[in-house]
């Protein structure tokens, strides 16, 4: 029983424990703590990096979305412009065709008028020629020597 409460032993045990605790503190606790701190810092940094990357991704997504919108708008503008141009061209072609058709019609009318007048002139000429030929034949039958002498007299009067 006396050996149970030996102060020296207790002291030694306490010192031992203290030394152990100190040793553990310096050999285990501090390195582990350091390691844990280091790891915490690393994790925090990585988390920050991830957060930054996410932010950057969000920004880029936003930018891409805006660019897409702008491209869609531009495409719509181009389509609208092309449609307007095509309509204008179609109108122009239609007007030109209309003009050409009118010109062709006018030319055809002029030509037809010319041909009609030509035909009329030809007919008149033919009628004149036939009439004169007929008159000649009649005169050949009807003219007498006295008429011939009269013609000679008239000729001589004119020629003087």
């Amino acid at each position: 029983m006396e050996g149970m409460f030996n102060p020296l032993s207790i002291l030694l045990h306490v010192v031992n424990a203290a030394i152990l605790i100190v040793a553990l503190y310096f050999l285990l606790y501090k390195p582990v703590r350091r390691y844990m701190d280091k790891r915490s810092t690393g994790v925090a940094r990585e988390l920050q990096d991830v957060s930054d990357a996410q932010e950057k991704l969000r920004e880029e997504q936003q930018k891409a979305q805006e660019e897409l919108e702008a491209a869609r708008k531009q495409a719509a503008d181009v389509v609208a412009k092309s449609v307007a141009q095509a309509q204008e061209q179609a109108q122009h072609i239609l007007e030109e065709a209309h003009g050409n058709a009118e010109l062709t019609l006018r030319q055809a009318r002029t030509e037809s008028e010319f041909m009609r007048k030509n035909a009329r002139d030809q007919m008149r000429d033919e009628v004149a020629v036939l009439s004169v030929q007929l008159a000649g034949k009649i005169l050949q039958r009807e003219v007498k020597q006295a008429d011939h002498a009269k013609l000679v007299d008239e000729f001589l009067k004119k020629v003087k």
Partner: protein
Amino acid sequence: MSEEAAVTTLQNEHEMEQNEILLLRGRIISGMPLSIAARKRITQNFESMLGCHVQMSTRIDKKLIAGIRVEINGRAYDGSLLGQLTNVRKMLTRHDKEEL
């Protein structure tokens, strides 16, 4: 050559030229037979008109119908019915063109 000789030569040449053109030959084309008197009158008429002698030959061409046509000195004088009908025809056809 002297001046007097040159003038004489020129005068002789002029006389020769006058002699050469003093007789013209022509032709009377008639639609009907012509009497001698008529032929003579025609000849005299042209002689007084042209101021020289005229010798005319005659020919009958029934195409003229009646009247005469005289060809002389490079010209033709048409007094035939055919000529008048031709003028009428020309007038009718030309008049139509002028109207247009």
